[in-house]
């Protein structure tokens, strides 16, 4: 277990270091996230009441779109110079590899979520009613998205058509995450009267299932 954690942090730190040096997140994904918020605002005719009540859903759709970019970046990093072969030869367990890469994606998603939260507060005039629920939902849903994204990213990359295949594979799987996270945010942002904490339980279940399946399936995918 300690070995897995050590390998996990090695892989995650590697990915984050590459990210920090290349600044793809800061220069491309983060501006894209804000752009999506602006586009929604324009498409919905900038009606403040509408925007406010739809803010939770728009937030999570924006997160999913950004997650696609983050996952594609995470895959591209390994494809360059066949770095993935080196990783496999390193003797790390595939599960640790999966958890490491998923953790790096999660960290990037959390940064984006913070940014997007600021975005909906400023642009859509959302107000945070329940900070704990907001933070826990962001974290739990982030884990689910990162786990599924990393698994499907690896899959699409193995077949060489990753850009077009990833969305159609990943987004339907994340549909329950979108529903759950949106409803929990409805409560946390006071956009609708629902029991957000019950939704958080569903999200936690999803996060656990997707992480376990990912760690097991990654082994099947990278073995050769």
């Amino acid at each position: 277990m300690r070995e897995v954690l050590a390998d996990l942090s090695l892989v995650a730190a590697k990915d984050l270091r590459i990210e920090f040096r290349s600044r793809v997140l800061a220069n491309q994904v983060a501006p894209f996230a804000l752009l999506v918020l602006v586009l929604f605002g324009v498409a919905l005719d900038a009606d403040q009441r509408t925007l406010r009540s739809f803010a939770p859903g728009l937030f999570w759709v924006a997160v999913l779109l950004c997650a696609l970019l983050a996952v594609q970046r995470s895959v591209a990093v390994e494809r360059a110079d066949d770095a993935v072969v080196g990783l496999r030869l390193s003797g790390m367990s595939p599960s640790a590899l999966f958890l490491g890469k998923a953790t790096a994606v999660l960290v990037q998603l959390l940064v984006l979520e913070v940014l997007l939260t600021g975005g909906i507060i400023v642009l859509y005039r959302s107000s945070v009613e329940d900070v704990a629920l907001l933070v826990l939902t962001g974290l739990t849903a982030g884990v689910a998205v990162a786990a599924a994204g990393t698994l499907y990213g690896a899959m699409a990359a193995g077949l060489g058509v990753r850009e077009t295949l990833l969305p159609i594979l990943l987004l339907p799987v994340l549909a329950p995450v979108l529903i759950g996270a949106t409803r929990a945010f409805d409560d946390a942002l006071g956009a609708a009267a629902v029991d957000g904490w019950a939704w958080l339980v569903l999200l936690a279940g999803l996060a656990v299932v997707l992480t376990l399946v990912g760690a097991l399936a990654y082994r099947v995918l990278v073995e050769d």
Partner: protein
Amino acid sequence: MDILATESRITTGSRGTRLLGLAALAGVLALLVFAFVLTDPDVRTHPTSGEEFGQFDAVRLLYLHVPMAILTYAAYALCAAASAGYLLRRTPWWDVTAHAAAEVGTLVCALVLVTGSIWGRPVWNTWWEWGDVRLMTTLLLFLLFLGYLALRRAAVDPESAARPAAVVALVAVLDIPLVNRSVEWWENRTLHQKSTLAELKIEDLTLFTLVLGIVVFGLVVTWLLLHRFRVGWLERAEVTHGIDRAIAERRGVASTTGVDSTVGQTREES
């Protein structure tokens, strides 16, 4: 794998599947008679006002819709089982079975969505009902397996898609109970499906037609599955056959040029 060599006829049919096909065809004709002629439309009279209500002729669509919905789930369950079988055994038989089941299942699933939508228009007065558990679950199942088929088609050779496809199928099947749960909580609207089936006051002939529909479409789907499996198997054989032939051709070319050049060399040297 030697089907290509031994079968000269270009067909995936056999005596068994032809009989099955005929039985399915006869069954479809019988179902048409039962669904359109022998059964009555769903018309009920309100006890106090005397107004007529019910599904009228739209109820006949259910003889098509309900069996296909059941078979969609059966085909996807087969796909998941075959995928698990492939991950355990790693033989092409399981993989081709999973692929065939997914493809036939997706076709039937599309028909379920379309017929359901057509039925919903007169009965619920809407083509689509957001927040209904079964509609959303079926639609997402359809989308999940569109991804599965896209992945299958994206692979250059069928072998390389086998493992990822098996994982996708198993994740899709795991995802379904979660989708179901989340949609059920979403709006707390489990509307119609259960209620309509209960409301139908299923009479003997209606029930019989429904069961007949399940049997008939079971035959049709089995027939499609068998043919799709054989086509898949032939595709595999073609790939291996093609590689073998290419290697043989290369060898032939290489050995003749090799002989010529050595012969030439020895002549020059001598």
